[in-house]
């Protein structure tokens, strides 16, 4: 019997050993429990967020939480639901924008999106507007998710949105942005359709997008 409450707490406490041993157990013996595990880990990430806000945790702890979450999800990846045959999965172009090398948050988003059955094309970091537009067209993707941490990433995001317009495909895609440099109002100002405050929010936005 897995105690999901304790799992959430262990994730919140950054208890590496406890979290990874549950992930391994579920992956090997109880794969049907994966969705509940993911929910517990997400609750744990919320706890981490609260501890960061209350100053108990600092940036290093956030990074560690991100890595721990990623590791757990990688272990569980073989158990992710496979979409039924003949159903095309929704494609999401995911990238950290031009000039920014941060990718921990982006990598977590990738894993959460994949766990919900979305197909993610991860373009990595420092992705130029032109490259993002080209890949979006090539893949026929309808969702573009942009990540950025540094302040000048806002400008890169804006230029990416403009590039999508210039290529004539802005109307066809949903642009969601996330990361430390953006918030609800900045997202609006730079021309995005939505702001993904957490990986879960971003997943909801992607699943709801046309």
């Amino acid at each position, binding site marked *: 019997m897995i105690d999901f409450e304790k799992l959430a707490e262990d994730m919140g406490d950054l208890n590496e050993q406890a979290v990874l041993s549950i992930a391994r157990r579920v992956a090997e013996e109880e794969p049907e429990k994966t969705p509940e595990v993911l929910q517990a880990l997400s609750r744990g990430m919320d706890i981490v967020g609260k501890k960061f806000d209350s*100053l*108990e945790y*600092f940036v*290093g702890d956030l990074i560690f939480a991100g890595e721990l979450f990623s590791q757990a999800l990688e272990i569980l990846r073989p158990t992710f639901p496979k979409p039924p045959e003949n159903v095309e999965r929704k494609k999401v172009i995911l990238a950290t924008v031009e000039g920014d090398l941060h990718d921990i948050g982006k990598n977590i988003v990738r894993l959460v999106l994949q766990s919900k059955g979305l197909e993610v094309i991860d373009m990595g970091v420092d992705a130029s507007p032109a490259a993002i537009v080209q890949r979006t067209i090539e893949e026929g993707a309808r969702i573009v998710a942009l990540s950025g941490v540094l302040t000048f990433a806002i400008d890169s995001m804006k230029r990416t949105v403009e590039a999508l317009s210039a290529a004539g495909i802005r109307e066809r895609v949903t642009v969601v942005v996330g990361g430390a440099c953006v918030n609800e109002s900045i997202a609006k100002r730079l021309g995005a359709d939505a702001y993904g405050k957490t990986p879960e929010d971003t997943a909801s936005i992607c699943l709801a997008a046309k």
Partner: protein
Amino acid sequence: MPTIRIFPGDIRAEVPSGANLMKALRDAGVFLDAPCGGHGKCGKCAVTVDGGTVLSCQVSVEADMTVTIPEKSGLNVLRAGIETAAKLNPHREGDLIAIDIGTTSVVCFLLDGQDGRELSSASALNAQTAFGADVISRIRAALSGELKSQRDVIRRQLTGLIAEACRKAGRDPGGIGTVAVVGNPAMQQLFLGISPENLAAVPFDPVLTEAKTVPCGDYLPICENALLLVVPDISGYIGADTMGCVLSTGLYEAEELTLMVDIGTNGEMVLGDRNRMIACSTAAGPALEGANIRFGMRGTDGAIDHVWMEDGALRCSVIGGGEARGICGSGLIDAVAVLLEAGLLNKRGRIQSQTERDGQRVIDLTEKVYLTQDDIRQLQMAKGAICAGVQLLAKQLGCGVEDIKKVLLAGAFGSYMNPDSACRIGLLPEELRGKITAVGNAAGSGAKLLACDRDYLALSQKLKDKIEFLELASLPEFPITLARAMNFREAEKQ
């Protein structure tokens, strides 16, 4: 046009109406500290205007005003590096000048042309500090139209230092035959007047890749008869100053695995021996030099420079012996080591006491000086960066941190810091305890070697090609290594 009267000295300057006061003071030759780059954030440019205290970076001059600059006492600038024996074989006959343009302090040495011995030296706070305390701020300023200003400011300052050194030794600047300059890539480029756009964006490639000699008169007319040595940079963030350290410490011919660290704003380090050397830059930030710390200050009078526990009470020593008005880097490191042992900080850096001031937890050190939660966080970022740099260099070299036989700390900070405290707080990995020596201004010593013996310039070109550069941010394991390095080791439970 309004006139400002500046005291002390009663300097008068006419200033265009609406001009920024800090800039006007700078134009009049008064350089104020501006670690935040003039954005009204650090409070260090405060002056008294007509009786009231204002931040000069936030004031426009509209009418005549009287400005009083707060008194500052002398800064402890470290000059003596390790004196390495060099044969005298300069590029050109005559006295020798060796200059180290540090981000924070600039120092100039005058050496005798007959036997290479040091005759005098002169030093000052880098006047470019007015454009920002750190390299990034200065690069940004240069790219926003202030390249020429910064170039002229440093050249003016170096001219003054050369003149001062010559005066002290009774030598004529016209008799100088060789001038060797070292500095990090940004400092070098700003001095030479080369736009630093290569340093502002990925892939951060260096432009000064070739060692060469040029007429010094084109850059510093005071040395009209001298050759200026341009020392190559190793990468966009590892420069001629690190090269100078490698030369003077002899790391390039070391038999044992040696780590050389310059614990300053940029945190450059080189690990290796005669067979292989790898360098990286850790962007530690200015916390260890007092910036962004509530009561942070440089190593000058009034700064707590050491902290320890005695009879169950916290004790501080203060530079100059008077009342503490702030704390400098070495004091900060000691304080955190003491607080960890006392259980007042947990392994994540959270202050365990419940005393709050201005909305955050604090720990009192003296009646006036206290540390805030933010201060601890700033230190965590700085020390985490440096520690992670060491660990990743070792990994890249394929060895364990415990295999390092010698650790050489270059730079002023390395000489004042308590190495045991540094290991206790994890600024340097604990495995290095007991292997650490301070080597003082190794960059300056390197500049001296380059000036004395022409073979060193050719050697610097060879080493530039040999020393590998590790871009930490591109390593997948960098974030997690950094995150772990930011934590502390808690005291043993009794």
